[in-house]
């Protein structure tokens, strides 16, 4: 039976679950910081030094942008997606399935919904932390316009919620941890490539553009790029609505599938 009012079982105690993950994260904070610190340097070297000599300028919204300026916001968006999605798939699955952490928590006053909400908000938090570090690095290269660029931080939370909740839905339904390869191959990798990340969408044929507009990462990149360039436009409102709607729809589905999986 699906109880769509499961959301009511969420209490402020979800923050305790979030806190547990934060404590574990802080234990190896250096390792956790290193990836978002070094990853943009790798990309910017490869694309900025290597590729941009070949590409030169990229046409975007009627302007010509240097290639590194074009891809820097995409790198940030991909980081948001990866951090939240991987946290709420592999890492949450390990806690749920192998470590039985959720089982132990469910013997306390926490509800299943508190636990799942805590996990998803934690996934979004990881997205914010990684984005903040990366933002610092790319800002040093002068690739972000301020103060608009600061809005990338709240955006990374929203993007984290949307991708984390989506990941949690898969965690609720996959039979084994290896099965995460499927949504990664079918959803995450195509988004990584075709969401206006490394080339503008309008270079694609029409049918491919339509598909691209359905992908959540397209909207995240659109928002992030607008903020990074300091040029806000009307299309960004639609993208915000898209991500909000996605979160509001996927989050309760995550609760339902996790309840089906864990409550016996």
């Amino acid at each position, binding site marked *: 039976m699906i109880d769509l009012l499961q959301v009511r079982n969420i209490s402020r105690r979800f923050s*305790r679950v979030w806190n547990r993950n934060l404590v574990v994260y802080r234990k190896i904070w250096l390792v956790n910081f290193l990836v978002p610190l070094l990853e943009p340097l790798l990309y910017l070297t490869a694309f900025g030094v290597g590729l941009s000599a070949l590409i030169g300028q990229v046409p975007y919204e009627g302007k010509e942008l240097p290639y590194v300026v074009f891809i820097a916001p995409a790198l940030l968006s991909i980081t948001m997606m990866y951090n939240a999605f991987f946290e709420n798939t592999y890492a949450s699955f390990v806690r749920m399935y192998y470590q039985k952490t959720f089982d132990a928590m469910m*013997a*306390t*006053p926490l509800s299943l919904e508190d636990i799942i909400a805590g996990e998803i908000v934690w996934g979004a938090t990881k997205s914010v932390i990684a984005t903040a570090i990366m933002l610092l690095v790319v800002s040093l290269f002068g690739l972000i316009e301020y103060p608009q660029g600061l809005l990338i931080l709240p955006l990374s939370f929203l993007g984290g919620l949307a991708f984390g909740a989506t990941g949690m839905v898969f965690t609720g339904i996959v039979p084994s941890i290896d099965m995460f390869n499927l949504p990664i191959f079918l959803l995450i990798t195509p988004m990584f490539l075709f969401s206006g990340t490394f080339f503008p969408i309008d270079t694609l044929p029409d049918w491919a553009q339509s598909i691209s507009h359905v992908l959540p990462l397209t909207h995240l990149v659109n928002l992030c790029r607008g903020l990074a360039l300091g040029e806000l436009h009307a299309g960004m409102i639609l993208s915000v609505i898209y991500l909000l709607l996605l979160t509001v729809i996927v989050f309760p589905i995550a609760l339902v599938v996790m309840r089906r999986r864990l*409550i016996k």
Partner: protein
Amino acid sequence: MADTVPIIDAKNLRKVFNGTTAVDGLSFQLFPGECLGLLGPNGAGKTSTIRMVYAFSPMNGGSLKVFGIDIKTGWREIKARIGVCQQENNLDPDLSVLQNLELFARYYDITKKDAKDRARQLLQFIALEHRSEDKVTSLSGGMMRRLVLARALINNPEMLVLDEPTTGLDPQSRHQVWERLELLRANGLSILLTTHYMDEAYRLCDRLIIMDHGKILVEGEPVDLIRRYAGEQVVEIVNPGPEVREFIQTSGYMHDMLDHRIILYGREDDNLFELIGEKFCTEGCIKRMATLEDVFLRLTGRELRE
């Protein structure tokens, strides 16, 4: 005890998994300060029952009150007032021994300072204070079990639910756990436990329920159950011949006829051993006290449950 509010008041509990009835109309009560044991073969419905009691599994029928509160509406309050040791050692492997207790306390809304104090006390109680900074994965099975017990006590519970608390432990570790449970019991903590070990049930429990196929078979104090279903004295006859089989079948004594063994149950003054020993004990007879294991096997049968 009739006028006290029971800690657990379960009426007609039912639990169905995919069409299979695991708990089939179970009614029982746990009274304050009592230790109640649920015994039964694998699949009898013990774990399903206690999972309903600690609001882990929703029930499919019946009514369940804990501390007089309906579990359907008051599950969060109930869970805040009980401590649970689940069957698996689901300690948090990402955290240290001390953190396992401190962070668990936070799930109960215990303040950071109180959590720290309480965690230190409990580590002392389970004699693990010297391991407080270690990873839980470095602990032995017995230490982990004690830590699970300590974790279940972090919120000063009014009732403890234990699902097979000593399964898989060596004898030393089992006795370590038992001693602590006895201390808690002596302090008036109410306990509901399941176990496969009859010596554990006999030692810890005031009252037992033996169940099978989701239903109660018998209920009572350990000593009474033994007297009622296995007598006082037991004689086991190894490789009995046809004469002794016939003799026992016609004698009217309580007995179990197995392939290579007859088990005879009698009173202290039946002098069974003397009666049988002189005539029939060619291959060997064993005289011993009746135990809870006799009761259990007599009531639930000797077939394997897999």
